Structure formats: C-alpha cells, structure tokens
C-alpha cells in the first residue's frame, strides 16, 4: 500500500491522533502520531487485513534537543510493504504507552530506548536497563549528558 493511501486510511479512523505524513527524505515514509494513541494505532496496523504489519523491524529513540521522538519501523511479511511511525515527546516528561503486547519483540528495543534516552514506556512488562549496569546514573545518548568522573572508583 502507498504511504499516502495508508495515511488517509489512518486519518479517517483515528482523526486528530494522526498528525502528518513525512515523505520527503524518508524511506519508508513516516506517519507522525500522537504519543498517547500509539498503542491503538499499532494494534490496528497489525490486525487490519489490508495492512497486517506483523513485524516490528526496529524501535529507536531520537533526541532532537528540544524534544524526543520514538520511531517504529514496521514491515508486513504478507503484503511486502513497510511504513514508519513516529511519535514526538516533550523533553520534560518523555513517556508513551508500550507496544510490547502488540509485538513482543518491542520489549528489548524499549528497554534500550529507556536505558540510553530515559524514555518511559508505560505499562511495559519489564522496563529495566539492558546495556548499562543497573546502578548507572543518567542516560548517555541524551545530548545534554555529562560524563561521570568515576564509576565504582574506576576513572571513566
């Protein structure tokens, strides 16, 4: 399905929760959605027979300095088409609903985004740090991250 047709379909179903379509410079195109309705839209994208995005290829956090974003790359084995979904989050309270009950593979990706960006996925079944030690302070891929001088007595 073409990105524009998919966007129109989502817009017709979810209204204001679907914000815009970013086609310029992106392959596949990105549909920007409101963070609060990520879970309903994800479930629709997976379950609708004309779409059936059964594979979450990647879930990544992005730091745009003034705001955060979470980007989902989806692919359909059945229809061989792909789409990106993006949700922008405010810098002060970066949180949005988890999608790990839609695609179980999302859990490790969400833990990584939580570990390195501090983005909170509400309702996640297991949201712990995945790469860094559990007593690490801060989220290193944030643009305003300051390196600690020492970690457990070892110079960083």
């Amino acid at each position, binding site marked *: 399905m073409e990105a524009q047709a998919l966007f129109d379909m989502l817009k017709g179903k979810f209204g204001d929760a679907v914000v815009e379509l970013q086609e310029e410079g992106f392959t596949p195109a990105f549909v920007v959605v409101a963070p609060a309705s990520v879970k309903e839209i994800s479930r629709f994208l997976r379950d609708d027979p004309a779409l059936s995005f059964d594979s979450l290829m990647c879930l990544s956090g992005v730091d745009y300095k003034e705001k955060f974003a979470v980007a989902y790359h989806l692919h359909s084995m059945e229809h061989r088409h792909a789409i990106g979904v993006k949700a922008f989050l405010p810098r002060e309270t970066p949180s949005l609903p988890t999608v790990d009950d839609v695609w179980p593979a999302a859990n490790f990706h969400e833990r990584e985004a939580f570990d390195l960006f501090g983005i909170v996925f509400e309702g996640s079944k297991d949201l712990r740090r995945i*790469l*860094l*030690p559990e007593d690490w302070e801060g989220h*290193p891929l944030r643009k305003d*991250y300051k*390196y*600690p001088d020492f*970690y*457990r007595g*070892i*110079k*960083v």
Partner: protein
Amino acid sequence: MVGNADLFVNWSRKSSLWYLLFATACCGIELMQAGASRYDMDRFGAVFRATPRQADLMLVAGTITHKMASRVKRLYDQMPEPKYVISMGSCANTGGPFYKDSYCVVKGVDLIIPVDVYIPGCPPRPEALIDGIMKLQKIIMQKKNFGAKA
C-alpha cells in the same frame, strides 16, 4: 643450592602456563586461533582451563566495559597464586578505539588488575600472542622464590 631450587620452580611454572578461557571481544578469535592446531600454544605448556581456580594466567582478550570490570576483578581474585596477567590488544591496554568519548569502556585493564605483559595490536596476530607468552616466560624465569625477602 637456592639458585637451583629457583630455577626448578620457575621452569615448572613457565612450562605449564594454563590460561583462563575468557574473552570479551574480537581478540578472543585470535586467542582461539593461537590455541588451535595451526599455532598450537600447547607446545609451550599453555592450555586453556574453563575455571579460574585451575588457571595460572589470565589473558585479557578484548574490550572491558565498566559493567564487565567487576567480573574481571572477581575472576582474577578466584585464581590461585602465583598468577599472571597478559593484556592482549589495544582495548585491554588503553581502551583503544574507545579511548576518547566513551562512557562505558574501561581505559585499560591495568586500572583494575595488575598486568605483566602488554601485547599491542588490534587485534594482535597469534604470532604476537605467542611472543607475549614467551616474554612472560622470561619474566617468570627471573623470579626469586627462596632468597631473603627485601
């Protein structure tokens, strides 16, 4: 007499350098290669042991992250005396390619445990690793075990 006893003890120690089967990054591939039949570290008496309690030598083969540092220290503490450490490759020596701008890599394993021999390279070839083991054997042969302690 004491000199001969030193010679005997040192000779037996250097001829049975059992190393810990422990690798954290791509240097481990070269370590496996050096231990396998083509380069055959067995001919120097160096064979791998799967537990630190039977090992004399720790070959730190690869990048050590801050999360891994406590494990490296614990493995080193579990090894019986006398014990030796070879730091293999740029990452274990200084942090290597991660030296600048890395929050998670320890800048040299000598910040955690004492090191006897450093082998440069990214990663070092098996010949370089064997050279490092022979350097360690030379160090062991110079040890004084029975003389008066300074």
